[in-house]
């Protein structure tokens, strides 16, 4: 019988909410897990250290965390492992020796989408680059991937670079401002604030340009329904949290994987190819909260049903 602790530092965004629900649902279906303690709030690395220490105090058997930073949490993680607690980082990596990492590959995420966009505009042109929150690890990783793609396309030029703060209203305002300046551009790369960008084009009546977003329900719906939109969604499943729980249970049961690091590589769904359109059509889930990624499961890792993740109930 295991009690698992969860630590997460961003609250109130659809992706993170899905991650938490995936964790709860997976913990529910794992027969060996009897308790789940979730520390889930908006805070910084120091706050996450506090939560981790509290989880250690609570005597959990494993900790699954979405780290705010790869380097900042080592003291608590090392203390946890010294106490025999299994540590699994999801979504992003940690540098603590002995911790398991089950991560979405953020660098690859950005690279994949950017490369598609640059190819889409014919390898040359001007793009708008809409990032996340300045100074946050995930944003930095994605920036590296974006730059890698940019380096491969010397004729692509970034005309506007801006931080949306991963905030819908901000992204929309910024796009309106860009449209209003009249400086032409040929494509938009977003760090997941995507459907409002499409809306901004539609509402202002500006001709659509190719747009890259994430696999959020809202954007995936738009890829199918918005006339004249050429776009691509790069998967970035929040359900990686559920996979993290599964991995932790495996390790606790003595089935540790050979490597400490498991990268979940993103996939790109575009609506410009037949295959892509089929995937997108299959992924539609109009009832889902528009901010939730549609990839609610990770085959091979998670065992819960769609109903279970939506119910968002963990073990008592």
């Amino acid at each position, binding site marked *: 019988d295991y009690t698992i602790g969860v630590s997460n530092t961003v609250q109130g965004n659809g992706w993170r909410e899905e991650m938490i629900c995936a964790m709860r649902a997976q913990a529910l279906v794992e027969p060996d897990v009897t308790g789940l303690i979730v520390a889930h709030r908006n805070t910084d*690395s120091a706050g996450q250290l*506090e*939560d981790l220490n509290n989880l250690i105090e*609570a*005597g959990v058997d494993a900790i699954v965390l979405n780290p705010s930073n790869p380097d900042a949490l080592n003291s608590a993680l090392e203390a946890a492992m010294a106490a025999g607690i299994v540590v699994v980082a999801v979504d992003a990596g940690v540098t603590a020796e002995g911790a398991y990492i089950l991560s979405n590959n953020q660098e690859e995420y950005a690279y994949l989408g950017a490369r598609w966009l640059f190819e889409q505009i014919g390898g040359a042109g001007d793009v708008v680059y809409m990032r996340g929150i300045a*100074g946050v690890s995930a944003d930095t990783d994605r920036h590296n991937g974006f730059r890698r793609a940019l380096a491969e396309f010397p004729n692509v030029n970034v005309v506007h670079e801006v931080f949306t703060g991963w905030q819908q209203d901000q992204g929309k305002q910024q796009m309106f401002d860009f449209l209003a300046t009249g400086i032409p551009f040929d494509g938009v790369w977003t760090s997941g604030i995507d459907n409002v960008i499409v809306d901004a084009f539609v509402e202002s009546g500006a001709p659509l340009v190719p747009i890259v977003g994430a696999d959020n329900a809202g954007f995936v719906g738009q890829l199918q329904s918005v006339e004249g939109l050429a776009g691509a969604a790069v998967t970035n499943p929040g359900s990686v949290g559920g996979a993290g729980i599964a991995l932790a249970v495996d390790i606790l049961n003595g089935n540790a994987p050979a490597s400490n690091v498991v990268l979940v590589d993103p996939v790109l769904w575009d609506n410009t190819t037949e295959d892509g359109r089929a995937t997108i059509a299959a992924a539609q889930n109009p009832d889902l909260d528009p901010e939730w990624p549609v990839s609610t499961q990770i085959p091979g890792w998670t065992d819960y049903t769609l109903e279970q993740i939506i119910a968002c109930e963990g073990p008592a």
Partner: protein
Amino acid sequence: MTALIRKHAWVIGLAVLLALLLALTKLIQPNFGAPGLESLARSALPFAFATAAMAVVVIVGGIDLSVASMMAVCAVTAAVLMERMAGVPALMIVLAVGLAMGLVNGALIVLTRVPDIVVTLAMLFVWEGMALLILSSPGGSVAPWLSGATRGPFLIDGLPMALVIMALAIAIVWLPIRRSKLGLAIYATGSDPLAAFRSGVAVDRTKIIAYGICGLFCAMGGLSLAALTGIGEPVPGPYLMASVAAVVLGGVVLGGGKGGLLGSIIAVFILRIIRTILTLMAIDPNVTTIVEGVIMVGVVMLGTALTLRGARR
């Protein structure tokens, strides 16, 4: 004696509440002991400095919305400097940077005659931007002795090093000031600036100095952040609202002139241990937010009701 108790009733009440909460923690988690206290003290460290910083400016009749941003600046400054130079001089520089930022805040308030809350709201963005300019993404590193300094017990088991550092750092800065005429001037300015001016207090200078002290405490807060995480993060943490809450909970009156640092620091521990308790009880984290809000509002309501009752009598 009774007068003394009445004067410090609020602080005593807070201390009793803290003791009760500690007992409750022990009840919920019988294993809670020295390591638990240590991690409690460590997690309270940045909050305590932020709260001390906020308390000083609230006492002088102002408020500083830029504390979290200044802490971020100091944290990244420390992380960047300590990669390149010895720890001690870097530490001195960080303290000086904090002091300077505080003095700038104070000077701007005095010179522009714009209300404190507005100036520091603007400076919140300025310092936040500054932190990003110094370090555009989390990084740098901190002298190992600094990280080590906050860990483990001091002399005896169960007396966390972090607590000792916090108490010493705050006491070294604040006690001499509190005892001096500067301390009086700070309270006088907060209580009634016109009367203070007429009593010969250099009101403007006092205000600037108080903001300087605030900056100094923010530097300590930033250093403690860097020490805890081992790196510097340019994004301000949740210290602004938390410090305002702790200051008010601690009996410092918004508007100035009343209260002290001790109550505020105890309030920090109360707020921290409530989070620990809620985690130990495996309360749904969303409910945790509600509980924290209710406790904050409830305790302040209770306190206000009690003091009003007292005043009526």
